[in-house]
């Protein structure tokens, strides 16, 4: 029997250092460096409070757009309504106010005392603006839905095994891919200055939409049998979007191409749904997706229309698209996507060949829609498109 080890003979445990020691140190150092600024403000405020005096500086309106009251339109008070008030609706071509001070507030005279948010790097309006962004934001808020409450989950019917597996695999794919359309805007959102508040607001609705899509497909899979297979092809497509070098390039790949294809997939999902529950899910999702596509088209158009050197901008977009299209194709050619869709289109595993034929037709439609959207954005992609315009199935 081993000798008993007495507790008091054990070596003391090492003193645990804070897991966040370095980060806290950096934070302390940064704010100590700027102490002359914020400490002065604090001292000034403390002095005034000690004296029992008031500033009332904030009540001065000579530099404000004060008194021009916004009037609601029939649907309430929209961003468009308040932007119509002089002093609030001018979107600067380049944001110079790199802090949180609201556009239209009295802020210039305080600028020298304000901190600069170093992360605000997307300072050119035309790297994120789209002329439909306010409309889409208002529409997005008005057309939100609830994946818990608005889907008739109690009507979900049990399907034959092949159809249920195909439905759950499609839901697994969508669960895997949907959140990139939230992560990508999130990656850029904090880089967009406050002066472009309409873009920031819209991107937040897109993130909410994608959270709901991820939620509804995860729920659909788990309510119907379970999640099935993740896939490497999906992951590469998502990485190609996430790692896009600029906001406009990523928005093109995500919103115009990727979500355009997913919009077709949602429409197909509605068409091939075997239950009213699935129909409702896909119909709700396709509405959201179409908003994202619309933003993508006009964001690219705005970028190209205002590029200082349009030809160079176009060439860069083509170079990016040459790679992006191929990586996106990796995802849409995966068996874990193409085969379940074919089974659902055909009506069963035994009719998968018919389903693949149907899928070929849908691919042609989605390619034409993609090229039309590129044309609409002023991005002539027809001659350079690297995607097959027809599905290469059974022709080898």
């Amino acid at each position, binding site marked *: 029997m081993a000798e008993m080890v007495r507790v008091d003979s054990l070596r003391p445990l090492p003193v645990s250092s804070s897991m966040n020691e370095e980060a806290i140190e950096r934070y302390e150092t940064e704010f100590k460096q700027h102490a002359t600024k914020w400490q002065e403000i604090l001292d000034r405020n403390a002095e005034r409070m000690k004296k029992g005096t008031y500033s009332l500086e904030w009540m001065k309106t000579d530099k404000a757009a004060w008194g021009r009251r916004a009037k609601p339109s*029939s*649907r309430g008070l929209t961003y468009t309504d308040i932007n119509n008030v002089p002093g609030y609706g001018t979107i600067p071509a380049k944001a110079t106010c790199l802090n949180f001070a609201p556009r239209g507030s009295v802020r210039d005279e305080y600028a020298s005392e304000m901190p600069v948010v170093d992360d605000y790097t997307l300072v050119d309006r035309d790297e994120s603006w789209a002329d*439909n962004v306010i*409309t889409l934001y*208002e*529409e997005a808020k*008005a*057309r*939100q839905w609830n994946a818990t409450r*608005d*889907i*008739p989950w109690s009507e979900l019917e049990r399907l034959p095994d092949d159809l249920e597996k195909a439905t759950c695999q499609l839901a697994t794919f969508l669960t895997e891919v949907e959140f990139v359309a939230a992560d990508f805007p999130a990656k850029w959102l904090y880089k967009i200055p406050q002066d472009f508040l309409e873009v920031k607001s819209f991107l937040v609705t897109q993130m909410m939409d994608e959270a709901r899509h991820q939620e509804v497909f995860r729920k659909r899979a788990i309510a119907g049998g379970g999640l099935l297979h993740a896939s490497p092809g999906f992951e590469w497509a998502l990485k190609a979007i996430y790692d896009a070098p600029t906001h406009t390039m990523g928005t093109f790949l995500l919103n115009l191409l990727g979500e355009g294809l997913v*919009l077709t997939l949602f*429409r*197909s999902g*509605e*068409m091939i*749904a*075997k*239950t*009213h529950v699935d*129909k*409702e899910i896909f*119909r*709700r999702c*396709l*509405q959201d*997706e*179409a*908003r994202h*596509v*619309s933003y993508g*088209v*006009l964001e690219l158009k705005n970028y190209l229309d205002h590029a200082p050197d349009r030809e160079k901008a176009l060439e860069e977009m083509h170079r990016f698209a040459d790679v992006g299209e191929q990586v996106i194709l990796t995802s849409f050619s995966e068996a874990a996507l193409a085969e379940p869709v074919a089974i659902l289109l055909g009506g069963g595993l035994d009719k998968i060949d018919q389903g693949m034929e*149907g899928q070929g*037709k*849908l691919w042609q*439609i989605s390619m034409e*829609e993609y090229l*039309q*959207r590129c*044309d*609409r954005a002023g991005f002539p992609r027809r001659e350079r498109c690297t995607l097959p315009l027809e599905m290469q199935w059974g022709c080898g």
Partner: protein
Amino acid sequence: MEAEHAEVTSREEIAFPSVEWFERLAQLMKHNRARNEHLGYIDCAVIFTVLDGGLRGKPWSAQVTFEEFEATDVREATSADLARADFSVDATLATWREMIESIARGRGRPDLTHTLNYLSHTGEPIRVWSDDPLRKDMFFRFNQSLQEFINASGTFRTIFPD
């Protein structure tokens, strides 16, 4: 969830295709305002065409303008309206009839193979089109509202030409 129009709620009979038929849908949309507020704004002008629904089998079209939560204008479409509309929804009388009858059988909800999206996804038997892809995308952006607009036909009887 789709609106439950319960069942045919009146013995009212309305001929299809006709302006009256679309006007009745507009009235029902107004009546169901709470449901439409829940679905959200719908802002678009749509041409609904019955390809063989006019005199001597020629096309017949209605233009319906949607604003916020209502169909604010319904009229027989002219060629000028075609240019102003955001998108068109075209189908033969037989296709319209099949869809409307499916909605009636389902008491305000079509069966799985007779939704607007199902019938239009491949471009046939319903064709949704516009010269501008952004305006065509409105068919998708407002799809649930458009579906429920048509679904309201389940609350009255539709009479079709022989």
